[in-house]
């Protein structure tokens, strides 16, 4: 924590901040230094002790990020398959904003939008983010506007820059009848950074948010992403995780269904090998009547890897007619892997339909035998079964071009 204090002061000096913001940052810094990184004693981190993981993978963490001097963007990282809007982050610093294909009057992208009142209790990583994220951005989508193209946020790092802890924060506000397709693409060959990303979403009436988080490419970073979603009536949120590339990753989603007929969908794939350890934790709060949530998470685990799924459906006593569903499935391909799940229901209303299921086990030998007897090799049969298992989740994606993109990135043929 010595590092943190000096690095925090250094960061404060480098930014021009208002007094209010300094107070906000100071408060969060204090909270973080008193709690430190979460560890296994915290119920939410029982299966993934991030304190230990950081110690093991990185050692003593530096919190100071060098300021980027006019950076060049490596064109290689950009996706050419689909036309899109871009936000490019290098080491947590925004270097390019491109909304060229959109109506200028209908969206706004703003700097320094710290939401000072908002507090999420008991999460020291968010405190850390609030204290150190050097700017807090806000994307506002105005009433009745649907973005024509998806927005891709590139999360990249440059190895020339010294930094170990990278924090970034964006607030999204979707006004009535608006919609946004958002892709988070992790693309870095970073050298052991701890990356902490915090998104706030506010969804007004009838708005639609689709968020696809793609962590496909091999990298040795430790990653924590938090989505905090507040939904008004009739709004829909869809969140998809492809959790594959990083050494450690924890994706957390905290969703309040505050308006009637709002719904939330969370889908995720873990495809892990090489001692990777990934987690998805979802908490959906049904606070009013007639809301719906659906969660589907599937894992394929190889070679000492481990996946964790913690899902919780909370139903308030006012939230009658709730429809909540959770399903987590895992295939443990070899002996060295581990799957942990904690699918929770906390229900205070009686007229609800809530269920969860969880199943884990090995690949079905009978199915492999069936396919091999029809001429496939063992390897082909295995691949076919695993892909078939995972593609069910990808098929939940409601946006066709992005579904295609993700299948391509993952290496699935189109016939799936």
């Amino acid at each position, binding site marked *: 924590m010595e590092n943190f204090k000096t690095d925090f002061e250094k960061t404060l000096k480098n930014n021009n901040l208002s007094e209010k913001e300094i107070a906000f940052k100071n408060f969060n810094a204090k909270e973080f230094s008193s709690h430190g990184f979460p560890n296994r004693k915290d*119920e939410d981190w029982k299966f993934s002790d991030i304190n230990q993981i950081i110690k093991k993978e990185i050692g003593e963490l530096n919190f100071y990020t060098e300021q980027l001097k006019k950076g060049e963007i490596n064109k290689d990282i950009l996706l050419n398959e689909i036309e899109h809007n871009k936000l490019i982050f290098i080491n947590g610093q925004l270097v390019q904003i491109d909304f060229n294909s959109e109506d200028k009057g209908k969206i706004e992208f703003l700097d320094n939008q710290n939401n000072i009142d908002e507090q999420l209790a008991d999460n020291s990583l968010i405190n850390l983010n609030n204290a150190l994220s050097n700017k807090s951005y806000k994307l506002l989508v105005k009433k009745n506007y649907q973005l024509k193209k998806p927005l891709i946020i590139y999360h990249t790092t440059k190895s020339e820059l010294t930094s170990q802890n990278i924090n970034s924060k964006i607030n999204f506000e979707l006004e009535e009848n608006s919609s946004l397709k958002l892709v988070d693409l992790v693309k870095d060959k970073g050298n052991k950074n701890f990356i902490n990303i915090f998104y706030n979403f506010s969804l007004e009436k009838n708005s639609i948010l689709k968020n696809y988080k793609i962590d496909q490419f091999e990298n040795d970073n430790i990653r924590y992403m938090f989505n905090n979603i507040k939904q008004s009536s009739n709004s829909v949120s869809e969140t998809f995780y492809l959790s594959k590339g990083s050494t450690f990753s924890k994706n957390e989603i905290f969703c309040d269904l505050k308006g009637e007929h709002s719904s939330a969908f969370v889908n995720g794939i873990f495809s892990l090998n090489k001692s990777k350890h990934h987690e998805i934790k979802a908490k959906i709060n049904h606070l009013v009547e007639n809301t719906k949530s659906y969660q589907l998470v599937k894992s394929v685990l190889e070679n000492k890897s481990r996946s964790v799924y913690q899902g919780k459906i909370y139903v308030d*006593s*006012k939230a*009658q007619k709730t429809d909540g569903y959770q399903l987590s499935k*895992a295939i*443990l*391909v*070899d*002996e060295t*892997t*581990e*799957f*942990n*799940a*904690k*699918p*929770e*229901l*906390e*229900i*205070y*209303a*009686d*007229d*609800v*339909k*809530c*269920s*969860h*299921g*969880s*199943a*884990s*086990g*090995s690949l079905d030998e009978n199915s492999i035998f069936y396919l091999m007897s029809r001429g496939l090799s063992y390897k082909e049969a295995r691949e076919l079964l695993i892909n078939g298992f995972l593609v069910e989740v990808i098929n939940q994606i409601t946006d066709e071009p992005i579904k295609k993109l993700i299948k391509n990135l993952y290496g699935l043929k189109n016939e799936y």
Partner: protein
Amino acid sequence: MREKELEKLKDYKYGFSTDIENFKAPKGLNEDVIKFISNIKKEPKWLLEWRLKAYNRVKVLKEPDWQKPKYPKIDYQDLYYYSAPKSFKEKPKSLDELDPKLIETYNKLGIPLNEQKRLNGIAVDAVFDSVSVATTFKDTLTEKGIIFCSISEAIQKHPDLVKKYLGSVIPITDHYFATLNSAVFTDGSFVYIPPGVRCPMELSTYFRINASDTGQFERTLIIADKGSYVSYLEGCTAPMRDENQLHAANVELIALDDAEIKYSTVQNWYPGDKDGKGGIYNFVTKRGLCKGKNSKISWTQVETGSAITWKYPSCILQGDNSVGEFYSIAITNNHQKADTGTKMIHLGKNTKSKIISKGISAGFSDMTYRGLVDISPKSSNSSNYTQCDSLLMGNKCGAHTIPYIKNKNANSNIAHEATTSKISDEQLHYCQQRGLNSEEAVSLIVNGFCKEVLQQLPMEFAVEAQKLVGISLEGSVG
């Protein structure tokens, strides 16, 4: 006054208390009290040392606080740790010498201690406050070599068995309440089934808390030797009092090769009144060890009583091919709270476990299923199936499911299912159309909901449990 009391008894028919002179240890928890208990029971030195070791650990341990139902702090110094009917200073040799008041109490509870009066062959060990008062059918059992007696008697007569197995499943290094029990346990049942013997009758213990300000800490130890079988029943009641009373028992089961133990509980402690005043805190540690190959332990529980139930009967599946089962119905009404479930820890190869849990909450109550299924890397070809269903009645109550699932073995399968719902209007309508009133209809539907678990109970208990289910939910509809 009398009428008022009768009115009260309508809700909980076991709520009477027996006016009997008691012999108590001084209030409080300290070394002297432990020595007092050990002394009065004429225990060997090793056991006293064992108790003191446990007590030294209790002093440094912290009471756990992660459970869902919170309760006011218990003042452990304000409890009596030993209470016995005065007539027990010298233990009566036979039933004829037993205080008539005691016999009357048990008759009221429907547990005749008189052997001739028993209709069906169930051997009973009755525990009144801190001591075991009578064990029936001793002769029939002794013939087969079965040992069924109070644990104090077993300590005197079979010290080797007790020494070997006591604390082998729940050691004194366990959690707070289990360790506290190890330090101050007073009595309980002891069962030993010799190799190859199938116990010819159901064995049963009946627990009764009578004195006020007492905590009941009994310890049950059941050992099924190779190839044996035993079915064991446990029932509990307590008088109605405004205070909360603590019940922290330990139950240890050990099944050796090819042995099977079936443990059934119908727990009907006083649940407190309509406003949640009084009632028992039932913080019990129950754990079974499938030590041998092909062994099997099966827990069945019907939980309708207690102000707070907090227990997780568990199975440690150590032997290869061993089987663990857990069937549970938990019903909470008014202000009752329950946090219950099971742990299945798979260590041996080809082990199987099954969990069926049914929770029903009504009124202002709160019910939590909390369970752990852990398949270790060495436990290949193991499987678990879990189903936990909850039924809610009204929107002032809560039902929660918190399963922990850990699969560390690629050849093993875990399947988990849970649902939460209410009794549908269609179901109610259908029953009412056919002439049932709404309470009968609910009772019928709930019994159907619980059927899978009720079927697991021995016949006599199943009937009692079925009635209990209906009574517990009285007044929760409409």
